């Protein structure tokens, strides 16, 4: 015995976040994709997608959902930034040595000229 209210609940939720079915080459098989969700503001304003917040500057909602792929992207990006940071630190250190060397050379040259 299935409850009518239960069916209504499923239908209402399904209408807010529909599935799109496209036929495939194989018989009785089809591609399923997520349809356009109309359920955008039931929880609160702002996005729950961290990527939208990082790249498009949207405000975050109270709840942020991150799937494994997004976490992986962020992890990769952080790793890349860390590597870049280490590389730049090395460059800065080398530049400091060069500047010190140049100051030393210029100072010696100035002393030599003055003498």
């Amino acid at each position: 015995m299935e409850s009518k209210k239960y069916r209504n609940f499923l239908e209402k939720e399904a209408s807010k976040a529909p599935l799109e079915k496209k036929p495939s080459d194989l018989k009785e098989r089809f591609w399923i994709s997520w349809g356009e969700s109309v359920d955008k503001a039931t929880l609160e304003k702002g996005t729950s997608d961290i990527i939208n917040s990082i790249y498009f500057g949207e405000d975050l909602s109270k709840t942020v959902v991150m799937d494994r792929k997004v976490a992986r992207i962020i992890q990769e990006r952080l790793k890349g930034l860390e590597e870049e940071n280490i590389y730049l630190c090395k460059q800065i250190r080398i530049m400091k040595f060069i500047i010190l060397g140049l100051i030393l050379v210029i100072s010696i040259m100035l002393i030599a000229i003055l003498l």
Partner: protein
Amino acid sequence: MLQNKIMDLEREISARFVANREAIKMLVLNQLHPRSTTLIRAPRGVGKSTLMLLLLKGITGDDFVVVSGASEVKRGEVVGRLHIPSLEKEGVERVLWAAFVKSRGKGIDELNRLNPYTTANIHHLMQFGEVWAYGQRSKVEDYILIANENPSDATSFVHPPPFYDRFDICIFLRTLTLSEKFQLQELLDKYDWNLVESMPQVLSFEELQEIREEVASVELDPELTGYINLLVRDFQSCVRDKENSEIKPPTLCEGCHFIRDVCGMIKEPVSERAAVTLTHLAKAVKWLYGKCSIDDLFQIALWVFPHRLNLIRTRNILSDIQDLLERERVKMEDRRIRRQWSLLNELIKGFNPSIYRLARDAAVEDVAFAEELIKIEENWINEGLLKRGEDISSQMGWHILSHNRWRTK
């Protein structure tokens, strides 16, 4: 308008009770359904009894009786006593029903000190709406029952969980901040140190009954009803059937796929009464404010769950439940992103391998969803669309709904 009367009641109580606005709001909302029962928990001297009396007076005027658990309360005072002259002269056992039974407003002070015999009588009253004494029964009319207790008080008796489960909500009061203490002193001066005496009767009990009828006829959206049931189910479900297991979490959860889920934090789950109370309160919110949102539902749940469940670790019950509810919101959002209900809606119409594969992926991450999918799988197995062993419960070793399988075949 009756809504205005309820607003006035809340305003009159708030004018005499400092802070704890959320608790007062819930206390008033919980009176809007028949035979309402409310439990107030707070440390000593915070105003449990005052708040109880303010509400009783605001609704029933003087037609209320308060029994105190701290004193020696006998059955005769709470339920009824034998009329001795009738017995002596006529040999007839006539029962004089106690004022507590007959009054519309019932208050119990220091509930945790009440003796088990009186508790059993009150438990029966709340369960069946009647009382028994000397083999005679008395039907109890519609009422409001408010009890209070100090959970950290050393008590003589520990009441059973089913007794506490009969209370619709449990509200917690906090001590006052510095500025609030000044407010209280001003209030006491204003009302001549007698806050309860100054409380007017804002509405009659007949008006309350009319309101209760109106609230009962309010229709909730299928979406909201769905979320009420889902919320309660998430606080109940367990793939290892913890309700009937002798071993309880966290030991039961060792090696479980869902160990980090909400279910893994709950030792004793909530009962079905939680869903009934949430429905009553959601209807009350809709009647009073015109609508009830998912956010309102989560706010209400905070007062419906604390006395109904046991957590594996409790630091502060309200904060712990708040954390679980936050996780529940994330879970509900996750379900939406995965289109779980859309998948289930398609599968209910008929078997489809592509959708079924997606639903299986979702089911391994969600017990409540898995239960519904397993039920559909059982039908498919009976129809020969799926073989036993290919279904998710066989493959994952879950025994949800596995009892009485012979009946459904």
